[in-house]
């Protein structure tokens, strides 16, 4: 970092950063907290440090965990038509396919909207809590963070949340539909999941896992 004129090719590997999306190479410069370092040609965010990001992510993760569990137990929609009443929870929705070969779809739905989001939250906490407390990384933290990142696209709690709203619109004129407590939990979940993705700087996490602070 001290020799800004050194050609990129001659820099040691720990002084460069490679864009994982387009393979562009840059001289590593750590942005200040709150700034974002982005790739010049594909605009992928490379380093996005934030003040207290670790604590914020942990707080959000705990909230997400509580919401996922809560939103799965309580009913999210109720329906009323000519004296027939029905209230459904996430579990009921996942079991909607439970007949014949559709059972696979039930399992997949349950995984996408409940088990994978929950697992990702637990993995995030497992990896980040020791880092934030300035302790050595947890055992297998690298594998845990890798798995968490791999599962990211398959965690669909927030897609399901929007699905609730769509379903509501579709049956609204057929019957009396009401919100259960879980509906609002899902609403909060959408916001928190987006916030969590914004707070997390993957580069910083990988860096902390590789070079833990000595405590």
């Amino acid at each position, binding site marked *: 970092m001290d020799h800004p*004129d050194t*050609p*990129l*090719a001659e820099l040691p*590997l720990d002084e460069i*950063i*490679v864009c*994982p*999306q*387009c*393979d*562009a*190479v*840059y*001289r590593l*410069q750590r*942005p200040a907290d*709150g*700034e*974002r*370092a982005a790739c*010049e*040609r*594909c605009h992928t965010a*490379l380093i996005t440090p934030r003040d207290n990001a670790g604590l914020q992510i942990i707080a959000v993760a705990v909230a997400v965990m509580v919401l996922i569990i809560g939103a799965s137990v309580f009913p999210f929609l109720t*329906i009323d*038509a*000519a004296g*027939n009443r029905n209230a459904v929870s996430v579990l*009921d*929705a*996942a079991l*909607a*396919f439970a007949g014949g*070969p559709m059972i*696979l*779809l039930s399992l*997949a*739905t349950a995984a*996408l909207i409940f088990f994978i989001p929950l697992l990702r939250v637990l993995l995030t906490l497992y990896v980040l809590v020791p880092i934030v407390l300035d302790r050595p990384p947890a055992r297998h933290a*690298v*594998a845990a963070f*890798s798995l968490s*990142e791999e599962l990211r*696209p398959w965690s669909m709690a927030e897609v*399901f949340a*929007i*699905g*609730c709203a*769509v*379903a509501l*619109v*579709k*049956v609204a004129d*057929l*019957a009396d539909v009401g919100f259960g407590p879980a509906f609002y939990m899902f609403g909060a979940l959408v916001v928190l999941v987006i916030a969590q993705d914004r707070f997390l700087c*993957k*580069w910083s996490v*990988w860096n902390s896992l*590789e070079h833990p602070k000595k405590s």
Partner: protein
Amino acid sequence: MQMVRMELSGTSQEILSARDLGIVACTRCSKPAPMGAQTCSRCGHRLVSRDRQSLQRVWAFWTVGLMCYIPANTYPMLKTRTLFQVDESTIIGGAVELAHHGNWGIAFIILFASVVIPLAKFMAVAFLAISVKQRSVTSQRQRHYLYEVVEYIGRWSMIDIFVVAILSSLVQLKSLAAINPGTASIFFALSVIFTMLAAQAFDTRMIWDTQTKDEGLKTND
């Protein structure tokens, strides 16, 4: 929020790729390693400068996804039973019916979300896979942006399945009315999943390789 522009090498404005510098970066944790290293020293992921098998996997997943998309449209998505009738409609059939009843807005949204977007995703992935094999008139940045859009939208297509799940569990009103999932739902879900896998299998670094070649051919700039 401020953007920091990553400093480019020396005086040249050209962006070098890791492959040009004899470096291979981990696709999982982005740690650079010298070319020839087999696994990432930080996360243990397999290191490949360019995934040569990437396109094969893209086309394999793409084909399965497209094959699943056909029965997803020919079989009924929902089975609706009311007091007087049983209705089994496909995605398109349901939208047409809504349009007949004057609900043009909802019919249009359903057609757009469940037909236009999935087909657009297939075309986009195919276009990207073909474009890295030959010169493309579309700029690298546009194609990269297209990839990001496809990757972002991919998981949101599962919303159709979730809506079917919600409706089927919610509308169970004994003799009055009941909605049950149709055979199409399983194919639609598979189609979405395989399209997501196809997009994930695509090695985006290949988009930028052609640019380097193209620019080498150009003398101006």
